[in-house]
């Protein structure tokens, strides 16, 4: 019988450009940070190429996160991180409607579970106000239970953060890439950067496919940021990957909470976040475990069981619901507690590294910051009217299965239609990995994890390539 290699169903993507084409900008890394920067430079007229070793976007740190659009209320004061988080937040609000990107303003409750934690709430409130986040409110236990009747009765007090929201962590960066492409940008996927040489005028970047020439390089290589950075000749920081394991509960649990439930950070306990997701689940996690490996995102039975215990303590009714998935993400944390953004003017090299735990929110803000840092003018082309509309797969907006003429529903747990899958396999920014297809559509990510549709989806992928 025919053998189907599920990990290699998509042919490697190629970069179509002539040998002596010199780009204005080469961005290394198509994580959420690289995608945001790509959009910004392309829209400003720079001839930009997004170079990525994987065959799709979001295969590194950006593939697994909590998907919260942060206000910055707890970000380090006066930091670049705070600036970019706030700017990224407002940029997202500006573009989301046009692109059909979802946002659910659930608000967040920073819940104190002990007297020690109650004492800390005031400080968190002050910090938030200082950070320019105005809509904050202290709540009594009674007020908490009015909002969150299912929360454990051990909750003592809370800080309500109005602005905290949920987004689709995968289709938003995809939208940034599509905007960049529309403005003339190019993608070089399956191009692993191995070395580079700067001749005083432009960089010759060696990759696993071809040499790419660009006047300026932007290193947004996330978990490999420090390694890629050494190409410029000096090493300014070290990445220390920090794993976060998660549990995703069945959609049946969706209505157990209304807000994002955040822990009060203390020295001893890290606590867990409980939140809804854009896709209608409940997410519990993440842990924070420093590790050596930059790709090892395995989940551990003991850790997951520990998370589960914690989740049941805080939200007892979760015990009545099934677990849909477990996964882990790796934060590209560094040896210092802040973003590592730096320009090297002699070398035309910009480092955007160590974007550890707020990159999803900050990416559009960071992109603007980096563009300003680069301080060069490009010839802006006339803007075409945007025709880009993102397929909505979040449960906050109308889904394709609620429409007609979609072919059939292929993935029943997530109600993914044939049309959604076919669209995700089309165009320049089409899915290049099975994970990429999942992130665009959510196929096989539901409660049956492919019992029903994995085989059929694999066949659709295979056929789409021939």
């Amino acid at each position, binding site marked *: 019988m*025919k053998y189907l290699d599920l990990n290699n169903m998509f042919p490697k993507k190629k970069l179509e450009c002539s040998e002596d084409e010199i780009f204005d900008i080469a961005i290394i890394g198509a994580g959420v940070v690289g995608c945001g920067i790509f959009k910004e430079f392309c829209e400003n007229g720079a001839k930009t190429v997004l170079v990525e070793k994987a065959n799709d976007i979001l295969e590194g740190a950006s593939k697994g996160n909590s998907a919260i659009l942060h206000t910055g209320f707890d970000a380090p004061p006066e930091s670049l991180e705070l600036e970019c988080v706030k700017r990224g937040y407002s940029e997202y609000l500006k573009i989301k409607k046009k692109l059909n990107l979802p946002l659910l303003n659930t608000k967040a409750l920073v819940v104190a579970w002990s007297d020690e934690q109650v004492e800390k709430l005031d400080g968190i409130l002050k910090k938030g106000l200082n950070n320019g986040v105005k809509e904050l409110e202290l709540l009594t236990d009674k007020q908490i239970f009015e909002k969150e009747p299912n929360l454990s009765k051990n909750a003592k007090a809370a800080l309500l953060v109005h602005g905290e929201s949920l987004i689709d962590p995968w289709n938003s960066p995809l939208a940034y890439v599509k905007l960049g492409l529309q403005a003339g940008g190019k993608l070089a996927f399956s191009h692993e950067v191995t070395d580079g040489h700067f001749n005083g005028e432009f960089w010759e970047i060696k990759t696993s496919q071809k040499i790419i020439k660009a006047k300026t390089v932007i290193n947004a290589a996330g978990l490999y940021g420090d390694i890629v950075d050494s190409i410029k000749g000096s090493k300014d920081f070290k990445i220390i990957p920090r794993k976060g394991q998660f549990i995703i509960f069945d959609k049946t649990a969706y209505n157990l909470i209304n807000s994002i439930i955040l822990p009060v950070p203390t020295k001893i306990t890290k606590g867990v976040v409980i939140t809804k997701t854009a896709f209608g689940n409940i997410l519990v996690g993440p842990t924070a475990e420093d590790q050596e490996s930059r790709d090892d995102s395995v989940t551990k039975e003991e850790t997951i069981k520990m998370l589960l215990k914690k989740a049941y303590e805080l939200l007892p009714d979760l015990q009545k619901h099934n677990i849909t*998935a477990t996964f882990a993400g790796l934060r590209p944390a560094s040896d210092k507690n802040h973003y590592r953004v730096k320009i090297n003017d002699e070398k035309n090299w910009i480092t955007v590294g160590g974007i550890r735990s707020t990159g999803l929110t900050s990416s559009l803000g960071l992109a603007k910051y980096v563009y300003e840092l680069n301080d060069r003018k490009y010839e802006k082309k006339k803007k075409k009217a945007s025709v880009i509309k993102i397929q909505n797969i979040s449960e906050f907006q109308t889904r394709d299965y609620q429409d007609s003429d979609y072919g059939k529903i292929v993935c029943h747990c997530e109600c993914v239609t044939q049309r959604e899958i076919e669209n995700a396999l089309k165009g320049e920014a089409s899915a290049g990995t099975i994970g990429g297809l999942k992130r665009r559509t959510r196929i096989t990510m539901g409660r049956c994890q*492919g019992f029903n549709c994995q*085989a059929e989806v*694999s066949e659709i992928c295979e056929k789409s390539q021939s």
Partner: protein
Amino acid sequence: MKKIQIAIVGAGPAGLSLAIELSNMGYSDVVVFEREDEAGGTPRHCGHLGFGIFEFYRLLSGPNYAKKLVEIALSKNITIKLKHTLINIEKNNLTFSTTDGLETYSAQKTILALGARETPRPSRFVSGTRSPNIITTGALQRFVYMQKCAPFKNAVIIGSEVVSFSAIMSAKHAGIKIKAIIEEDENLNTFNILKPISELFLKTPVKVGYKVLSINGEEKNIQSVTISKNGIEEIIECDGVIFSGKFTPESAILQENFKDFNHTNNSVFVSQIFQTTSKNFFAVGNVLRGALTAFKCYFEGKKLARFIDDSLKNTKLNPLHVKIQCDENIQWYSPSLVDLNYPSKTLTNLRINKKATGKIIVSLNDNDVYSKDINVSTYTNIKIPRLDYPISKNDNVKIRLES
């Protein structure tokens, strides 16, 4: 909104046999709704033999069995609406996602025959890498019998239910070598005879008492699994892992729409006439409690027809439900309600899925009224007879296992 008399959701053995029987009884306003583009249910992808003996007195493969059921239904002019996915239930109204847009039907009686699925890896907590090559038996069967391809070359099967052994057959059919069947319990979760059969005739080692410690691999490619027994670890090389069994009802839509949900069975409460706590809703087949064989679901469906007939004719008859509750040692039980209007020789049937010695005790309003000694080494179905005591509407019936 379209009005119909009887809506059956799910065109598997249970739903189809019910539709056929209702048609035999003269009902014509019956519509079967099915989310797939083909009717027949789970047997459609069970390419092995093992179906039809009791229903059709012939040994059939799953797909032929499904075909036969569908043929009979169509020969009786039963309407089967394909590509209709039930997405919401409100009062008597059923909303379906269809390619013509959302459609709502209002039915006098609705029967939910949604079937079951296996429990995939995440909720079994097995450590290790994530990979598309970690699948369930159901997915394997679809790869092999429907898409006609093999997603890996060497695999291990985790679990030891009947379906785990049928996974060997599917794998063999596709040329996949099964390195071992791995069971965490000390005993198989099915007939013990399957171990020697599997080892002798299928050359597949059956390792009982082994825990899977981790699935190892690089990136998304699986290289091996680490298993352990009594602290001794063993590594089995493979490029695929099949999680088999631990069936769970396809009941999320019921959990979302029924106030009263039975967390032991992971399904709605139903009485011996398959009626739920909502008078016009019935549930039948594997959606009630996970896996029984197809013929059991078929005969359940057939039996239900009479009760649907009854409830349509006796509109004045209101159910008198007494709820049965079980402790966590019981994997599932069926029925989970007693309807006092209907005499019955059994109180319920229950399954214990582990080694157990002790007593099954039934209490009525906290007084023990029945006990049965048990000494079982593996999964067992136990019949609890009707209680010798009269029960009335607000009574409290509980079943527990004391070891």
